[in-house]
């Protein structure tokens, strides 16, 4: 398996653990509170992605095959 990828619910995804790091060069100018907010938003977004898209596979329409 590619480094940094895990299998969850039978599907591959980027290991959330590696997204915990925050590179200082990017957060220059952002307050600690803003950084924390971004991290919360990231988790909320990932939750939303799983809720909406992770439990089904959308197949292409037949006329495209």
């Amino acid at each position, binding site marked *: 398996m590619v480094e940094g990828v895990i299998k969850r619910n039978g599907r591959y995804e980027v290991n959330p653990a590696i*997204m915990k*790091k*925050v*590179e200082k*060069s*990017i*957060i*220059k*100018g*952002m*307050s600690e*509170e*803003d950084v924390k*907010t*971004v991290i*919360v*938003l*990231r988790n*909320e*977004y990932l*939750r*939303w992605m799983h*809720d909406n898209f992770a439990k089904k596979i959308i197949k292409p329409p037949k006329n495209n095959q």
Partner: protein
Amino acid sequence: MAGRLYSKEAYDAPLKKDEKPSADLAMDNYLTFACRHKFCREICPVHQITRNESHTPYGFNTALLSVNQGISKFEELGDTFTHCLQCGACEIRCPNTLFMADFYKTALTTVELVRKVRSDLVREGIGYPGSDNVQKEIDAHLVTIEKQKDMLAWAGDLGLQIGGESSVVLYVSRFTATQVSETARAAAKLLMSGGVKFAIMDGVSAGIGEALDVAKEDLFKDLARKDIEKLTKMKAELVVVVDPHDYFFFKRDYKRILGEIPFKVVFVTDILWELIERGKLKPTKMIQKKIAFHDPCTLNKLTNVWQSPRNILRAIPGVEFMDEDHVDQWYYCCGNGVSTFKKVRPEIAATIGERRIRKAKDLGAETLALACPHCWDHFTEVKTNTRLEIELLNVVELLAQSVGV
């Protein structure tokens, strides 16, 4: 950190006519230009209407980069840069922001970039479509805040402590005080009913984000400083904010521009929910309505407050709450925008508002619950013009009805 108008140093140097934007700014622009994700595109409520890629952060940064490359002129940026609500959706949907360090080593800061370019256009005497209307709004604000009687009329017969020392202060700025006073009254009655001892200010000066879009940064700072000094003098420890735009300014802008604030700031629905949880407020009266909730951008996208209004609606007996996920609502806006959008692009603002109301009606909602006086104002106008039938009511007022105050 404090004393910074913009988070990124690359935004510091003002853009000028016949002058190439700095290399630092060009690099920042390039990082978005080079990014081909374009998630900022579909989430943008303006792009959903205009379908014009120029009206997205990708377009904004590309336009600025083209000025640096000598392909276009600074004077031509006005049309592009007025197509932004400053709602912050693109910032939080952008993988460069959400997954720091994984992609292009930068975060999207569209709200600040749009403020900067609009202000620089005004500073250079070029302006942008509708900038006169923005100036008029600021002038009206400055006249109204001087009229203490008008600013305090909402408090009327409530018998509130005005000025003096108080550890809790209810902060009601000009727009709510003069345009949507029922929300302020409901908030005050609920705090009293919940046993909270509080005061209101004998005059609030700030609450005009438009100043940051027309090169009046000093005015924005002065008004904010005046309120913070007054609150400090009142010995405030907790400031309860009714207008989410003010909450956004306190949480993000005032801190960055003026430094740490010597008191805690809380949005009104957060403290009201806390009072319900502690049993101090009891919503007991049945409100039999099918209700959807519209997340204000300044709460949901810009300060990440979305739980307490939903908790309150769920606590009101009789309410059939038709919740739309707050992340789904990153795609929504009422159309008003955080500061100048409605004044510069009224037709698009109206279309965005109509689209949002129709979404709530499609759910079967009879009432669209709100948490922002600006959303209420804009939706009311849209409702009148389109004759769409839906009740618009602030969550705070709904709670007041159920508590019986």
